[in-house]
């Protein structure tokens, strides 16, 4: 059954790949068309390429700033979340803490809350409670890095826990008998074995932070605005600048795409959200 009909597999996957890629390709087509051509007969093939949308977007200081903010916020958040989740999962997996399974479930409940209504308390906290003198957490990159923990940290903990659980306890015990400290056990035994899981966690949380929109739109105004928010500024109910919007969308895709293509082969090995291996 296996391996004897590769032609069938290749044909099927070519078809599926076309279906997967088409929306992204269409986005690109729209991004390289002048506005007047949009309303003529849609055509799948590109006759002329019009780069002005990109020139406009890349030459825009504000959008470049949003881009930089997005990079800082997602990287900061992904690193913070992965480190915290690694520590938390080690604690949940290796220590006999009272009520730890409840704490484990509680973490994920933070991801279930409908984001829309929490915008209001976050907004009040960020503008009125978390302030030091003139300084507010509102519209700062630090604020967004911390805030994104609410949805990324639970996800990271749930993705990493099975990986850490799967590392045999005998290994830590043997190292402890040999006189290793907890820190040495983590660094020499757990970390190397958990690396695929950690890499996947880092990448996925990075992408989630990069893609977030609703919170960023409410809790930043200019200094810490992200690129997804910049994108939505071109969509209004009356006149949408489709071409500009599409080119920002393509630009938004590129960094995620680059990072992803570098690490994608590790993804399958490391994706174990909540799954329990025997």
């Amino acid at each position, binding site marked *: 059954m296996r391996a004897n009909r590769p032609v069938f597999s290749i044909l099927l996957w070519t078809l599926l790949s076309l279906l997967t890629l088409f929306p992204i390709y269409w986005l690109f087509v729209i991004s390289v068309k002048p506005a007047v051509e949009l309303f003529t007969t849609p055509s799948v093939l590109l006759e002329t390429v019009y780069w002005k949308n990109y020139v406009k977007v890349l030459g825009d200081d504000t959008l470049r700033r949003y881009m930089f903010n997005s990079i800082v916020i997602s990287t900061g958040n992904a690193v913070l979340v992965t480190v915290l989740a690694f520590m938390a999962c080690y604690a949940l997996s290796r220590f006999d803490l009272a009520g730890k399974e409840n704490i484990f479930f509680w973490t994920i*409940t933070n991801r279930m809350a409908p984001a829309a209504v*929490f915008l209001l*308390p976050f907004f009040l906290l960020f503008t009125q409670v978390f302030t030091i003198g003139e300084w507010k957490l509102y519209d700062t990159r630090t604020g967004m890095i911390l805030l994104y923990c609410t949805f990324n940290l639970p996800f990271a903990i749930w993705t990493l826990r099975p990986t850490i659980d799967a590392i045999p306890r005998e290994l830590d015990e043997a190292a402890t008998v040999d006189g290793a400290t907890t820190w040495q056990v983590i660094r020499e035994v757990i970390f190397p074995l958990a690396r695929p899981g950690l890499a996947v966690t880092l990448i996925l949380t990075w992408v989630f932070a990069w893609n977030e929109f*609703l919170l960023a739109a409410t809790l930043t105004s200019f200094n810490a605005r992200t690129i997804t928010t910049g994108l939505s500024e071109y969509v209004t109910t009356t006149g949408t600048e489709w071409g500009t919007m599409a080119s920002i969308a393509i630009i938004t895709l590129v960094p995620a795409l680059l990072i992803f293509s570098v690490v994608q*082969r590790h993804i399958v090995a490391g994706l174990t959200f909540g799954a329990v291996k025997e």
Partner: protein
Amino acid sequence: MRSNRVGWLMLAPTIAILGIFGIVPFLYVLYVAFHQWNPFGANPHMIYNGADNFRRLVFDNEFLTSIAFTLKFAFFAVVSEVILGYLLAQLFMREFPGRGLFRTIHTLPLIVAPIVVGSVWRLMTTPSIGIIPYLLKSWFGYDLNIGRDATMAFALTVIMDIWHWTPLVTLTLLAALVSLPKEPFEQAQIDGANRWQIFWHVTLPMIRPAILATVFIRLMDALRTVDEVWMLTGGGPGAATRYLGLHIWKIVFPKTDYGYGSATSIIVLYLTLVMCWLLYVALVARRDQKRPS
């Protein structure tokens, strides 16, 4: 035995961050839910009104329809994604040239921002500029207008969700399939089992935890979908795609009815929690059964 203090210390930052950014806002929302508060309304002050908001919810037709539509959306999307994702994961288990490349392509939608996904599908389906209405019109003479046709708008949000999230299911199930032991399959083949019997009696029991875990995360996220649908349909036509996340957003932002919006989210959060908790219990019960004590 190591001291548990080290364990608590390692858990402390997580508890602190989720406490400040999770519990504090939650308590605030709970507090507001028992008040009438519309800062831009006739009376901008917060007035305690007991359980009035919750009583109003029970008879709120918009809210009840929104629940029904959201459940319908989540059901169709998650079921299709799991079935499709499983079949695709099985296809990836075969050896064929270019498998790595196809897997990368198949994974692409996962990294696209929800707001971009919504924009793309809107670009493709808006009647005057989209390619899909154009093709349907010229090939089948069918007029697709998701601004008017509620059923098609609903179907498109489901299709969009399937496009976006099936890869996650494929990857999770593929990770589970790859890690399965070979012996049970060989044994079943020796015993003369057919493909359906192998799937039902061998594969399914072994990957059940992975399937449940996938359903768990997909259901959780489908129930709080906002960005994509907001971009694609804006909740319309009428209220046909006004799913709960969007419904709450509309009460809180354009209407600034903070008290009622808070009460709505408390109930939505509660419903989501119950559903996910039931799934989680099913997941853990299975694990405890299998694990020798």
